[in-house]
């Protein structure tokens, strides 16, 4: 991020100046698959990476590029790449850095799809992962092997809300010359910018708070530009010769942006998880109000925490901004503006109580998403994890009374009033 403009201004303007030809103030939606070459020589120059530009929308697109530059500016990174989803972003990073025989150290307390990718899918391709406690830097340190190529975790874990001590873990990774890759979806750059704490690569699900309106799926990789990929034996895919482009070394030719150049030339080219220009536009519309929304998300979250902690029907409440949370001190240090707007809580009465609560509220939406402007709820015990016993859920860090709440931007009194309806129904059930 430059020193010229502050975060709120960059949220609105980064990556776009009004179109010279049409004067369009908004970022135009370049809904095109391809781009006319002025000559065969120009086409060859683009293919050879002699000049920058757009070849085909699977690789890059002007609307998507505006979003990418905006994300790079907000995170203070060297470069960014937007793709079809957060999971696509995660897969692109792993496949760009790792090859068969390589190893990953990852947090054991992450979003299920992140765990599935590393635990079940990547081993089929010879890439194995050891899962560790994200709150224990020593455990992370001792899990690193000679063939470890990256350390991965979520700044704020989903759904357990564990907070990684990013500066401590970054120090370990730095000493071992291994990139620290963080999923920063739950914090967004508004609450915390991981590069300032020593992280090297960020992945985002743009679908959540960055987009913020539940209308478009998207993901992104932001590259800090602060990692030395120069060890050709350790990182041959980034610093060694590429199979095409005359054996280009992305590290030698693109330095701080080597990872993004590699992913664009291989991941986007060969796998093709591109983001549609229209969805890029929707996501940018969301980012324009990110600072305003995040402020309100946090205000409402703190109000809801007060409400829940003091409610007679609530058994327990979990959020890193509460002193009772085991990572509260880390959260205060690295997330001083607040630790996001996901709250987990348990209702007295167990699984049936959770189910009744969810079915009795009206304003809060019952669905499988987070980070929408609207308040969202899900009860894993009766939905995503309904097939599991209470004991099996506990093993996964979940309880059968647990409600996952994504606090929205509605009037706080309307949210609490809505919740009272749910609690009233549970009370009847408990009688």
């Amino acid at each position, binding site marked *: *991020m*430059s*020193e*010229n*403009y502050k975060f709120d201004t*960059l949220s609105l*303007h*980064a*990556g*776009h*100046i009004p179109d010279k030809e049409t004067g369009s103030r908004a970022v135009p939606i370049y809904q095109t698959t391809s781009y006319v070459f002025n000559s065969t020589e120009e086409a*060859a*120059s683009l293919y*050879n*990476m*002699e*000049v*920058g*530009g*757009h070849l085909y929308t699977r690789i*890059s*697109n*002007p609307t*998507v*590029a*505006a979003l*990418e*530059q905006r994300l*790079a*500016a907000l995170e*203070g*990174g*060297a*470069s*960014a*790449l*937007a793709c079809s989803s957060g999971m696509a972003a995660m897969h692109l990073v792993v496949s760009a850095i790792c090859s068969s025989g390589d190893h990953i150290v990852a947090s054991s307390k992450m979003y299920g799809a992140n765990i599935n990718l590393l635990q079940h899918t990547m081993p089929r391709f010879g890439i194995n992962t050891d899962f560790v406690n994200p709150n224990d830097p020593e455990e992370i340190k001792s899990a690193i092997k000679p063939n470890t190529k990256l350390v991965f975790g979520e700044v704020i874990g989903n759904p357990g809300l564990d907070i990684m001590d990013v500066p401590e873990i970054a120090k370990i990774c730095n000493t071992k010359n291994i990139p620290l890759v963080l999923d920063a979806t739950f914090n967004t750059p508004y609450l915390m910018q991981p590069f300032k704490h020593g992280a090297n690569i960020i992945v985002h699900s743009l679908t959540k708070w960055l987009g913020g309106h539940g209308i478009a799926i998207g993901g992104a990789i932001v590259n*800090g*530009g*602060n990692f030395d990929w*120069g060890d050709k034996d350790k990182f041959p895919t980034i610093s060694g010769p590429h199979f095409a*482009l*005359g054996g*280009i070394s992305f590290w*030698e*030719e*693109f*330095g*701080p*942006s080597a990872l*993004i*150049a590699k992913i*664009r030339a291989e991941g986007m080219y060969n796998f093709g998880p591109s983001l549609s220009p229209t969805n890029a536009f929707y996501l940018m519309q969301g980012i324009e109000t990110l600072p305003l929304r995040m402020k309100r998300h946090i205000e409402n979250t703190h109000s809801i925490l007060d409400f829940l902690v003091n409610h007679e029907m609530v058994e327990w409440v979990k959020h890193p901004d509460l002193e009772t949370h085991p990572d509260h001190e880390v959260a205060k240090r690295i997330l001083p503006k607040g630790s996001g707007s996901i709250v987990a809580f348990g209702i007295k009465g167990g699984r049936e109580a959770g189910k009744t609560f969810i079915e009795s509220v009206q304003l809060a939406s019952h669905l499988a998403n987070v980070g929408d402007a609207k308040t969202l709820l899900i009860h894993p015990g009766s939905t995503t994890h309904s097939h599991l016993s209470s004991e099996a859920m506990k093993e996964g860090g979940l309880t059968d009374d647990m409600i996952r709440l994504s606090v929205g931007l509605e009037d706080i009194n309307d949210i609490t009033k809505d919740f009272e309806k749910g609690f009233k129904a549970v009370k009847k059930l408990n009688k």
Partner: protein
Amino acid sequence: MIINFKGAKTYIGTGGKSLDINKMTLCFLHGSGQNHLSFVQQARFFAYKGYSVIVPDMPAHGFSDGNPCKSIKENAEWINDLLVKLNLKDVVVIGHSQGCLVALELNRILKNSLEALIFVAGSNEIPVNQFLLDLSKENPQKASQMMVTWGHGIDGDMSINKWPGHSHYGEGNNIMCMNKPTALKYDLHSCNDYSDGIDAAKKY
């Protein structure tokens, strides 16, 4: 390519093509606190058009080890020795900012035998603000950040980068951070102390 030159690992960008000493060579000289990455597009463009291209990382810059040169003359002598080592004869030198001063001094050493000198944002002297000189010594990272912010201007975060998704500021700042911490200080002092540009430009 990486060579051992004057006892230090020295990186020389060649635009993605092998160096052919029988062809005319375009030699790009980077500016203060920069390295070969400032000229990636130009290097690749001309290399793919059939020229031989070299973009050396000066000592302590980019991927090159060694101690930074402490004057423009020292930089020029280093480049001259490099051209001799690589056995390059028909050479066009393209300098950017500080690279222009180095090119002028190289012209003096080589007595007008270069094919051409091309300046990008150059001058015969480059005085440097005292605050920046001091900051480059005390906090080179901050000094780099200020130079990148100033260099790209107020709209640097808004204007579209030809490389999709690349940030002018973020990338520029990290390019400067790849150099050894003392490199910027010596570069800026070398520029500030240099006053022989007019004389060096004379025909010999």
